[in-house]
């Protein structure tokens, strides 16, 4: 279905609360530090025993950046010294070896992603080495049918980098742009020309990358509707297959680098909403399909097709077409989703080194989902990916009676129905065009843990 979207400023203002982005459910706040190496190993091994083990999705965290972007909330290491990457990569190779020993070799890597940080901070030789170590340890596809993607900083990549990445097996690229406006770029310390960006995209097209994705952020300092409109126009001219427009959440107490952003420069809430409204109107008018949350895609892009077929899912990188993978996250702070568990690696390199060199999977927290968690995750994924929830599907899969099990939730949803966010009857929930932008709020109704953490205000604003 092509999602029609209605921008209703009144509703958005009213529902502007803090809420998780549901790249996982339960969210990382629920991960428990009693979950360790032994738990992970047992679960990883048990997934090999399934009659049809899930295929694998590998995530590699490459945390280094040459310069700091003030808005960034990722786990990163800012350094001008390229030599810092080498010892980290040695540890990463160790982790690859440890992890791969847990998984049967007939489990094909359907999905692979390098994230950061800036993955292209490392040298060309190091990129080749990392991929070689990965290929030695895991069964990667050789037919270009996997979804192998990398986050690119156009300032740290040229046509040669693109050619190399393609030859290493990457076929999807995600470009950080954020904003082309010089004033905004200065205010966030990320100076990046259109020419650099265009060169990378042209190279990606030339080398037949299957999908080019551009990341933008709204709500950055010095942004106005007019300035962001100019950025969007330039982005469209570059012709990406997918665009995400993330909401900047100013939380300087939690993310130290954000302290360098002058709060007075941030667009006022109404201006921010006007920007969002423009984004939606403009991108849909330019023929992009609204996938959900902050994602747009061309109607012929895999994400849009997966949504149409009902196979879209959500993972730590956002939306994804591969629902049925066990996800192995490697590198500092990387999150894995294996079996019915989530687990996360340690954040700090020293700690990472200690564990990996001792032959331990460097997990420091995680969670084994119980039946209720699995049920709620299923509901949230359906809503956030398809804006539609058929009770019967959930009832067969989880052996519950939806209306009995979610009696309280349904009464809250009735209130949202009166507000026009959704319609609910005895068989399904349908998110309305005005409710699409507030799907996080709708999902939050099913989040059992949110009520406990809401008061602590640990999440970013939904819009």
């Amino acid at each position, binding site marked *: 279905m092509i999602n029609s979207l209605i921008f209703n400023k009144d509703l958005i203002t009213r529902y502007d609360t803090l809420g998780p982005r549901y790249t996982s459910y339960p969210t990382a706040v629920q991960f428990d530090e009693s979950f360790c190496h032994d738990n992970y190993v047992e679960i990883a091994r048990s*997934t090999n*025993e*399934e*009659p049809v083990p899930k295929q694998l999705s590998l995530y590699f965290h490459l945390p280094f950046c040459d310069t700091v972007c003030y808005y960034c909330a990722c786990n990163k290491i800012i350094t001008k010294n390229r030599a810092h990457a080498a010892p980290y990569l040695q540890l990463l190779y160790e982790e690859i070896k440890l992890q791969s020993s847990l998984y*049967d070799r007939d489990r094909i890597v359907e999905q692979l992603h390098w994230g950061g940080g800036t993955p292209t901070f490392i040298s060309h030789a190091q990129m080749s080495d990392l991929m070689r170590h990965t290929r030695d340890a895991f069964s990667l596809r050789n037919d270009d049918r996997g979804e192998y993607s990398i986050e690119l900083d156009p300032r740290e990549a040229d046509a040669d980098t693109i050619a190399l990445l393609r030859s290493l097996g990457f076929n999807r690229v995600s470009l950080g742009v954020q904003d082309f406006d010089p004033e905004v770029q200065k205010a966030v310390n990320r100076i990046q020309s259109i020419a650099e960006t265009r060169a990378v995209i042209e190279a990606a097209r030339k080398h037949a990358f299957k999908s080019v994705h551009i990341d933008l952020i709204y709500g950055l300092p010095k942004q106005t509707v007019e300035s962001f409109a100019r950025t969007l126009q330039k982005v469209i001219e570059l012709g990406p297959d997918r665009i995400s427009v993330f909401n900047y959440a100013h939380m300087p107490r939690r993310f130290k680098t954000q302290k360098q952003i002058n709060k007075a420069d941030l667009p006022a809430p109404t201006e921010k909403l006007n920007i969002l409204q423009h984004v939606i109107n403009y991108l849909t008018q330019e023929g992009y399909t609204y996938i959900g949350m902050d994602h747009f895609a061309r109607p012929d892009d895999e994400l849009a097709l997966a949504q149409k077929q009902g196979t879209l899912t959500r993972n730590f990188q956002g939306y994804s077409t591969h629902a049925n993978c066990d996800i192995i996250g490697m590198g500092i702070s990387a999150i894995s989703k294996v079996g*019915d568990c989530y687990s996360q690696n340690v954040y700090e390199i020293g700690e990472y080194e200690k564990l990996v060199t001792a032959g331990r999977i460097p997990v420091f927290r995680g969670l084994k989902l119980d039946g209720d968690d699995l049920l709620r995750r299923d509901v949230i994924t359906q809503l956030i990916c398809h804006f539609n929830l058929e009770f019967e599907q959930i009832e067969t899969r989880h052996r519950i009676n939806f209306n009995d099990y979610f009696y309280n939730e349904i009464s809250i949803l009735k209130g949202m129905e009166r507000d026009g966010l959704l319609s609910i009857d005895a068989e399904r929930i349908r998110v309305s065009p005005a409710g699409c932008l507030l799907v996080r709020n709708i999902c939050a109704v099913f989040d059992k843990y949110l009520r406990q953490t809401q008061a602590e205000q640990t999440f970013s604003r939904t819009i």
Partner: protein
Amino acid sequence: MSSTHQIFDISKFKVSCGNCSLVELCLPWGLKVDDLNELEKIIKRVRPLQRGDYLFHTGDKFQQLYAVRSGAIKAYRTTEEGNEQILGFYLPGELLGLDAIDTEKHVCTTVALETSSFCAVPFTRLEELCQQIPGLQHQIYRLMSRELSSENQSLLLLGKKSAEEKIATFLVNLSSRLHVLGYSSTEFRLPMSRQEIGNYLGLTVETVSRIFSRLQKDKLIVIDRKLIKIVNEHGIRCMCTGNKESSSKSRSATGH
């Protein structure tokens, strides 16, 4: 002042065959109340095993029979080349050790696939008791016969031509054994791994997974990790005999 906690010792727990849900499958079936009491006196409850724990090893002195009360057990022998060859899987109500009566030594190794509990029946005492209780003797013959018959079933299973027939037969067999226990015959969790299924059936793990995927694709079963749901019981039964025509949805039946 709180009293000190007594550690629960399962071996001291009095066995009550009369109340056991497995009574119809196990030794006491058909015994009179008095005879049942005599039997209960010799049966011991043994400590439950965790996944991966051994019940007995090949070559161990045979002293008692074990009745599985809960869980699942794998029996295997190690080949001369040092490989494991799985002989069978045991579910509640089934007896382990009957094959050791002859040599008085266990001829296979048994290991728990999940948390499992057992009753132990000292064999010498059982033999003595058999002389007093003819019904018991008869029941032992029946159980041995059941074991022989299931061995035959296994041979037939292994003799199946295609991997598809083997897996379908394996699933149907498991399903009917679970049905006898009062569990669902159409929805169950596989206690064994795909490696173990492959080892038992003489198939590679890749083949096991490929066939399971195909059964799912053909809408005969639905797989959710180790949970199997048989959605087309007739179809899967037809597949046991290699009768694919009637297992797939009679595509050709409409004719031209």
